[in-house]
């Protein structure tokens, strides 16, 4: 499966691991995800606990960036109001490909408690940008953040880089 799992079975008994270049690249990409943190509400407070030493988000290889141009994924944590929705769209468009989105909490997943009477709340950030991983909760526990991050890494590891169009049967 993973590249490092093959360390138990090295080639010719030496320090060589055989694998595809694609696997190597995906391994590097999934283990060094830099993120743009877009904190909007109480989920961002929970995310502080996630970032602190107890849960240590950085062990996933994540580094918080303040610029969308240096980020691999954007973390939408909180209630997306219409005023903010315009800004999120701009920030997402400024990010370089390949880019991912994690939507955290009920509000950014579906509008949360504002789903009926929230005239000012966007009912789900997936209405304006494509979301890769949804983390449920109101707000989610740090364990849920971990699960979501692992889901994103899983997704990145499965992605095709070479001959993408051919493999997907587009040509």
């Amino acid at each position, binding site marked *: 499966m993973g590249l490092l799992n093959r360390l138990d079975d090295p080639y010719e008994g030496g320090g060589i691991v055989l694998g595809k270049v694609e696997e190597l690249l995906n391994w590097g990409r999934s283990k060094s995800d830099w993120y743009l943190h877009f904190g909007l509400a109480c989920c961002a407070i929970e995310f502080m606990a996630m970032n602190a030493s107890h849960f240590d988000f950085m062990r996933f290889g994540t580094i918080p960036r303040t610029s969308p141009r240096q980020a691999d994924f954007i973390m939408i944590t909180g209630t997306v109001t*219409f005023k903010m*929705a315009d800004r999120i769209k701009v920030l997402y468009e400024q990010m370089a490909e390949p880019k991912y989105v994690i939507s955290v909490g009920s509000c950014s997943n579906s509008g949360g408690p504002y789903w009926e009477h929230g*005239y000012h709340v966007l009912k789900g950030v997936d209405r304006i940008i494509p979301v890769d991983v949804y983390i449920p909760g109101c707000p989610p526990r740090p364990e849920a953040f971990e699960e979501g991050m692992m889901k994103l890494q899983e997704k990145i590891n499965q992605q095709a880089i070479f001959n993408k169009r051919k493999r997907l049967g587009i040509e």
Partner: protein
Amino acid sequence: MLATEIFQRLSSEFGEKVLGLFDQQPSDPAISIAPEAIFDICHTLRDDEEMQFDYLMSLSGLDLGEKLGMVYHLCSMQLGHRIVIKAEVDKANPIVPSVERLWRTADWHERETYDLVGIHFEGHHNMIRILCPYDWEGHPLRKDYQVPEMYHGMKVTY
């Protein structure tokens, strides 16, 4: 000073601009005034030696159906008393004098009231929306507010 004393004092100075006193428990005693006299009465409340209301705790707007309401919660840090001032304005022409020059706190409070209830404050130096986007239409906390279908190409309803 007691609410009745404050009411008598204001009545003697402003006459029929001061409409009435409501001191039914359990709510705080409130004095109802005419909207056009808000600035002058608040000025007296702040600067009078015996009242010294130096702190505006809250400024809020209400939709009362027929009319719009203004509520000012005042407190005196010096003398330790408090009073509530209420006023009502017509929905057709909701303009009241701004108290921003008396208490700087009122700056954002009045902008919020304008944004959500739609009361216009005359004399405010920067009467623009504070919470909703600048191009938002309508005042959301009015009872007859209609939620728009779309905003900037995004669907508003669930």
